[in-house]
């Protein structure tokens, strides 16, 4: 099963490499990983997507907690949560197709952030499924380049995850 883990990590040199190294050492899987400092500069927040059964995810959580620089770990998928990913796509958009690309982009609430005579660069934000659906809708043969940020997640409602 797919799990979304949120990790608060001391914002120190080498801390991220320990997190990534752990997954390799213990043969755990990482689908995606996002990381940046929080409003408190001494802390980084990671959102990590992994796939595994409950026992594996329990082990992942325990081993993350074992790292000295990890302050807290939660599994966002245990509760209602919001997850978002940002994608930038460069799309071939020439002739009669140009309008169609624009329309599809509007349907998905994407924004065209850069334009040339024969391309659009589209910015799209949403859950991963939405981004993949957009690529399908545009048709992969028109896609020139894709860059995705990986998933970030936060709990819904009054549920708060901090130190």
């Amino acid at each position, binding site marked *: 099963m797919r799990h979304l883990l949120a990790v608060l990590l*001391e914002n120190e*040199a*080498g801390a991220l*490499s*320990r997190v990534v*190294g752990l997954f390799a*050492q213990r043969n755990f899987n990482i689908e995606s990983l996002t990381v940046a400092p929080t409003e408190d500069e001494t802390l980084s927040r990671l959102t990590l997507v992994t796939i595994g059964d409950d*026992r594996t995810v*329990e*082990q992942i959580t*325990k*081993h993350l*907690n*074992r790292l*000295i*620089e*990890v*302050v807290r770990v939660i599994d966002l998928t245990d509760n209602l949560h919001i997850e978002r990913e940002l994608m930038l796509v460069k799309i071939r958009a020439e002739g009669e197709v140009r309008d169609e690309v624009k329309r599809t982009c509007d349907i998905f609430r994407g924004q065209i952030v850069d334009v040339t005579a024969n391309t659009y660069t589209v910015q799209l934000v949403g859950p991963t499924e939405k981004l993949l659906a957009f690529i399908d809708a545009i048709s992969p043969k028109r896609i020139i380049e894709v860059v995705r940020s990986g998933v970030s997640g936060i709990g819904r409602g009054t549920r708060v995850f901090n*130190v």
Partner: protein
Amino acid sequence: MTEMLSGGEMLIRALHEEGVEYIFGYPGGAALHIYDAIFKQQAIEHILVRHEQAATHMADGYARSTGSPGVVLVTSGPGATNAITGIATAYMDSIPILVISGQVPLDVIGTDAFQETDMIGVSRPVVKHSYMVQNASEIPHIVKEALYVATSGRPGPVVIDVPKDTTDPNELCEYQIPDSIELRSYKPSERGHVGQIRKAVQALLESERPIIYAGGGVVQGDASAELTALVRRLGFPVTNTLMGLGAYPGSDSQFLGMLGMHGTFESNNAMHHSDLILAIGARFDDRVTNNPEKFCPDAKVIHIDIDPASISKVIPADIPIVGPCKTVLNQLLDAVDQELDSAERDDEPLREWWKRIESWRQQHGLDHDLLDKKPANGRLLPQQAIQAVYKATDGQAFVTSDVGQHQMFAAQYYKFDSPRQWVNSGGLGTMGFGLPSAMGVQFAHPHATVVCITGEGSFMMNMQELSTCTQYSLPIKIINLNNQALGMVKQWQDLQYGGRHSHSTYSDSLPDFVELVESFGHVGMRAENTQELTEAVDEAFSDKHQNNLVFIDAFVDPDEHIYPMFIRGGAVNDMVLQRPD
């Protein structure tokens, strides 16, 4: 008044203030500022080794036998990488050691400078934590924090990588060290959850066929007295892992011996047929569980460990208890006392259980009286050598071992009555561990009898340290169970590879060990049968040699195997008991 010191001086000062007595190390370019600081002081004694791997095992032996952290100092590059095996050894067995590695100066890091290696990166998978010094002024804080991390919670090795420029003798700064260390991201559990304790006691008192399975966590957690009290209070059988030997007195009648791959018939059977396992500071290693699918089918599991990640990693725990073994055992003792006072308990099932255990012990228990028996082929049995050492040392010696058959014979036949008495590389299985770890033990306990039980294969992996033993006059007694082969490999090849001894023998290339050790100024003896062996052992442990390193080259029966042995893929009680014809 604050003192102005160089980074190198601050490093040594901080170690001394934290109670460090010895540094095991080897100098080199990137560490020379630190070595100069060592030269100018007397508070800490530096022990010059012959290879950095041995330095880590010495620090490890020091730590295992005292509970205090062992400290290593090596230079950058090859000095650092040579230390890795020892760091991994300490990591697998949760031993607190601090490894300080020199590093090239900060401004050349990343340029592939001479003797540069990314020590933080190379050591990362085998350390509990590591630090790279960026400024001289932070050195005292890092030393204090590193020692705190190494020794608290589940202990483990910690590395401090020290770029040469941060120890420059011409750059002085104020020496400031914090009074205590507080980390928001690291707070080891201090006691067991009260509700879980209650559930555990309930399960213990309801069980009919219980067994207590205790591991290295009891030794490292200084919880032997509490374990012993609980075992006696409950009247339950107890078994120890390889790492846990000595946690419960080995000569006590409630002790079933070691469990696992080469565990006793009675302990493995008692595990398999139990209805309740109380696991304390043990981690259900694959050498203990055999096939986890077939592991102890009727047993409920209570698992006590300081490290939550050890719980339900291999075998799911029914009642997990996270906390230090010592505190949790005290909590259990209190709760058991209350319950036993208030309730009448039916002892009949436990008596029946003991009867079954006794019958297993009678059927195939270990024979601890082999010294009185002469093998038909006239050869010396390795088991006899262990028994002779046990007898000559009254079971009181510190015993270190290397890895292989001799290690298992020592574990089976030397009955360890005290924790920290038995020192071996259980998790990583590091050949070459025995001699240097014995040296670390001897430094920590200068007047104690320290024995290294080894085999010629393992011994040759770190025998250069015989020179260090000469330099520091270490009177270690080395028992070399010489079977002229890599015995454990050969045994597996006998059992699983049709007797094809692929690269497990070395034809006639072995040295004359007696002459070899004598060339270092030590005493060498040779024994080829039981009588020669007992005479040599008696002499080695006599007052005559109390100040000498004695090496007994014991030529044991090369065809002897170690049994019992797990049948691969089977349950815990699926064992081969003797060599198949």
